[in-house]
C-alpha cells in the first residue's frame, strides 16, 4: 500500500505538472484536475461529517460546553439540508443564512480586529522595541497618517510624496522579497512530495 500510494501521488503529480509545459498533456491535466475537484469536494463533505461526529461525541459525553456543540450540530444540519433542498442561491438562504448570520458575524469579527491589532501593536512596542519593531510601527503610523481624511484635507507631504513612495517602492521591495521567498519554499515543498521525500497521505 505504501509503494502504491507513493506511485499514485508521483505519477499523477507529474502528469498534471506536464500539462503546464506541454500543450499535448493539457487534456490529461484538465481531466485529472476535474477528478481532483470532485475528490476535494467529497473530502470536504467527509470533513463536515467528522466535525459533526466530534461535536456529537461531546454532547453524548456531556462535556463542558456541550450545549454549544449541540447548537453547532443543529445549525449545521439545518443549513445543509435547507441548502440541498432549496439550493444555496435561494432567497431564503441568502437572506437568513448569508445576510443574517455569515456576513454580519464575519464583518463584526473583522471589526474586532481593530481593537486586537491596536492592542497587539502597543504590546509589541512595550515588549520588543528593536529596529524591526520601531520601523514596523513608524511605517504603519506614517501610512495611516497619509491616508487619513482630516478636516483640513490631506497632510501635504505625507499623502502626496512619502506615503506613495513608501508603499510603491520601499514596501514593494520587501513584499516582493517575501513573495519570492514564499514561492521558493512552496516550490521546494511541492517537489519534495513529487520526489516521494514527503508523504503526507500516509507511509514513511
Amino acid at each position: 500500500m505504501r509503494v502504491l500510494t507513493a506511485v499514485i501521488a508521483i505519477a499523477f503529480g507529474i502528469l498534471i505538472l506536464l500539462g503546464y509545459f506541454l500543450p499535448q498533456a493539457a487534456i490529461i491535466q484538465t481531466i485529472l484536475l476535474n477528478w481532483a475537484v470532485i475528490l476535494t469536494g467529497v473530502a470536504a463533505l467527509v470533513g463536515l461529517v467528522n466535525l459533526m461526529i466530534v461535536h456529537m461525541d461531546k454532547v453524548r459525553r456531556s462535556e463542558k460546553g456541550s450545549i454549544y456543540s449541540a447548537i453547532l450540530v443543529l445549525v449545521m444540519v439545518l443549513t445543509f439540508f435547507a441548502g440541498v433542498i432549496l439550493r444555496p442561491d435561494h432567497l431564503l438562504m441568502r437572506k437568513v443564512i448569508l445576510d443574517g448570520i455569515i456576513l454580519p458575524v464575519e464583518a463584526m469579527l473583522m471589526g474586532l480586529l481593530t481593537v486586537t491589532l491596536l492592542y497587539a501593536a502597543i504590546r509589541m512596542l512595550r515588549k520588543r522595541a528593536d529596529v524591526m519593531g520601531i520601523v514596523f510601527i513608524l511605517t504603519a503610523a506614517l501610512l495611516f497618517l497619509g491616508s487619513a481624511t482630516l478636516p483640513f484635507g490631506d497632510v501635504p507631504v505625507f499623502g502626496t510624496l512619502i506615503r506613495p513612495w513608501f508603499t510603491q517602492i520601499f514596501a514593494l521591495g520587501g513584499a516582493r522579497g517575501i513573495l519570492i521567498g514564499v514561492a521558493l519554499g512552496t516550490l521546494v515543498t511541492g517537489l519534495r512530495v513529487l520526489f516521494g521525500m514527503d508523504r503526507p497521505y500516509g507511509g514513511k
Partner: protein
Amino acid sequence: MDYLDIISGLLSFLFTIFVLSYLVGDNPLFRITIYIFVGAAAGYVGSVIVWQVLKPQLWDKGIAAIFGGTLVDQLLILLPLLGAALILTKISSRMAGFARLPMAFLVGAGAAVTIGGALLGTLLPQMEATINFFDPQLAAARNIHALEVMGNGAVILFGVVTSLAYFHFGARQNANGTMHRFGLIEIIAWVGRIFIGVTLGAIFAGVFAAALTAFIERFSSLIDFINKLIGIF
C-alpha cells in the same frame, strides 16, 4: 421591507451585538454566536459543494455517461466515483486505510498545482516585474523618465535581495559551540529586516484600515436597522 428583510435584519442586528460583546470579555452570547456561525458556514459550504461540484461534475456527467455515453466516458466518470467511494471510507476508523489511495492522488495533484502556481504565478512574474524597471523602452512607453524608473527599480531590487537574504539560515558553528551567520550575509540580512519591517508595517496599516471600515460598516448597519424599525412602527 418584507418579513424576510425583517428576519435578516434582526438576525444581523443581534449577532453584531453578540460579537461586539466580546469587547467586555469572553461570554456565552459571543460563544453561541461563534458556534452558530461555524455551523451555518459549514452547512452552507456543504450545500454549495453538493450543488456546484458533485451534481454537475459527478451526478449529471454520470447520468449522461451511463445513458448514451461511450465506454471512455463511462470509464472517466467511474474512476472519480471509485475515488469518492474510497474517500467516504474515511468516516469509518476500521476502513480508513482505503482512503489513502485517493488522498495520495489529491496530494500529488495538489503538489503539481502548487509547483505550477508558485513558478508561473509568483516566481516568474515577480522576477519579470523587478527586471522591467530597468527597461528604458517600458519607461518611455509609460512617459516616465528612465532614470527615475531605474532609481526606483534599484531600491526595489535592493529590497528584494536583502529581504531574501534575511531568510538565509545557513550558519557555521563557532569554537565555543554557538552558531553564527557569514558576516556579509549578516549585514545584508540586517538591511533586509528594515525592508521587511516597512512591508509588514504597510500590510498592518492596510489590514487595520480594512478592519476599521468593517467596524464602521457594522455600526452603520445597526443604526440603519433601528431607523427602519422606527419607520415601521
